[in-house]
């Protein structure tokens, strides 16, 4: 009997039941200890506890890394916020302008484990794509970052014009982003560029945002028809051969500036989201560890009690 209890405590029955079936069948009558009724194997619980502890260590470390990266990038993102405001003040904000060739620039991250920011950006892009559907209309995606690519490639593979990844291998700077913007402008025909990104508000909140950059032709058309850009005609335009040339330069410069801010905000949101995700997962791991410890101790206690009872009753039987 004591041997049977020792076997149970070792947990051999659960871990490797096959090799010892012969031994067990001779030692333990099947009807005496049905599987898993009296004791959960403590070995299994112990292993699980160890792995949860390791997971907790990893998530804690990732949280620390994200926090320090966030601090660096947050100041830079906040400093870049002045950059797009003059353009919005001049050209207005025109999400509803109806054009034929829409290009949706989805900004996402390369790495996962950062909450829902990538799927939010993708959802917004998809919904906007649906909004722009129509006869003689064309919508293309330009994707920055691995994660949005993985999600969008499933249902709209044909619509993806360019995919760029590994943006954040080196610290982001304006030169890099303007080269990127140049690449996009050269390779994609557009009437309006819609940049979808997550704007960083605080460590726990990100606002999905869509910025619009219109092509010079559309800007001119809108200004002449006196739509949302009606004020533009009152501006005197200095330099350049023609008005169109200046507007072209302006639109390209605007795109690079808006994209720079978008990339910064998105990188900042990513770190913030990762930080809060890792924080909550280390907390969950802690909770789980508490529960497992409780189960472990309870089982251990139960098996000790059983053994004691067995020994005492055995001794009593001998005496009697």
């Amino acid at each position, binding site marked *: 009997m004591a041997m049977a209890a020792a076997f149970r405590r070792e947990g051999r029955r659960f871990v490797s039941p096959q090799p010892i079936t012969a031994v067990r069948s001779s030692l333990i009558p099947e009807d005496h200890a049905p599987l898993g009724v009296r004791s959960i194997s403590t070995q299994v619980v112990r292993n699980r506890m160890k792995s949860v502890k390791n997971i907790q260590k990893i998530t804690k470390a990732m949280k620390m890394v994200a926090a320090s990266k966030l601090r660096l990038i947050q100041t*830079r993102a906040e*400093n*870049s*916020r*002045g*950059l*797009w*405001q*003059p*353009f*919005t*003040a*001049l050209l*207005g*904000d*025109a*999400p*509803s302008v109806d054009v034929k060739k829409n290009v949706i620039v989805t900004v996402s991250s390369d790495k996962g484990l950062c909450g829902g920011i990538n799927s939010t950006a993708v*959802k*917004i892009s998809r*919904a*906007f794509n*649906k*909004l722009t559907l129509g006869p003689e209309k064309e919508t293309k995606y330009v994707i920055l970052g691995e994660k949005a690519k993985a999600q969008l490639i499933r249902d709209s593979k044909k619509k993806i014009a360019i995919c760029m990844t590994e943006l954040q291998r080196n610290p982001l*700077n*304006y030169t890099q982003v*303007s080269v990127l913007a140049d690449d996009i402008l050269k390779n994609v025909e557009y009437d309006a560029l819609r940049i*979808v990104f997550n*704007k960083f508000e605080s460590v726990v909140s990100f*606002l*999905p*945002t*869509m*910025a*619009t950059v219109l092509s010079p032709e559309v800007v001119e058309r809108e200004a002449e028809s006196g739509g949302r850009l009606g*004020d533009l005609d*009152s*501006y*005197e*335009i*200095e*330099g*350049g051969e023609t008005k169109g040339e*200046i507007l072209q*330069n*302006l639109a390209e*410069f605007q795109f690079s*500036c*808006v994209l*720079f801010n978008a990339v910064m905000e998105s990188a900042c949101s990513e770190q913030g989201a990762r930080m809060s995700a890792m924080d909550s997962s280390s907390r969950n791991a802690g909770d789980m560890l508490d529960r497992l410890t409780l189960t472990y101790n309870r089982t251990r206690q139960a098996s000790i009690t059983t053994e004691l009872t067995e020994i005492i009753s055995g001794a009593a039987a001998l005496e009697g």
Partner: protein
Amino acid sequence: MLRQASRLLTRSIATTQQPIRVMGARPMSTNLPATPVEDSAFLESWKKVAPNIDPPKTPSAFMKPRPPTPSTIPSKITVNFVLPYASELTSKEVDMVIIPATTGQMGVLPGHVPTIAELKPGVLSVHEGNDVKKYFLTSGFVFVHANSVADIVVVEAVPVDHIDQNLVQKGLADFTQKLSSATTELEKAEAQIGIDVHSALNSALVG
């Protein structure tokens, strides 16, 4: 002076109309600028295609509100001077800015006509009372709005006193040598850009 002519003309009309406007259009004595309006057409069409997803924010939701066009010319001009990595000046009220536009130096005083100008490498000077602050700009754009707000968006700028004269001379000599030894069109163009920037830096230091 001619730049301001149209502005001055409208001013005289505006001042005569002002008392009426004050009585009619402002029931409350708050002088707040109008809050940026959301694009209602966009919101409606969004609701139709994606009723379950909140519409994304647009940049105007995060804009700092701009002052409305005043009826009289203010005594100071408000300058926003931004770089990709910093906001050098934010809504700073100064007397005058001189801007290196591609068409030549351009002085901007309060009440300047609305203008969009492209910049070339040169010196931006910000005049505030007797103080003159000088920055060397690479390139960018300037928008002067009707409400006497000037936005200067530049790729790179440094205060002029941070520039080392010796390094500028050395760079100029280097690029001149490169231009003379350049063989391909690309090399020539690169050397020419280098010379242009360095001679602009040089003249900024000397002048």
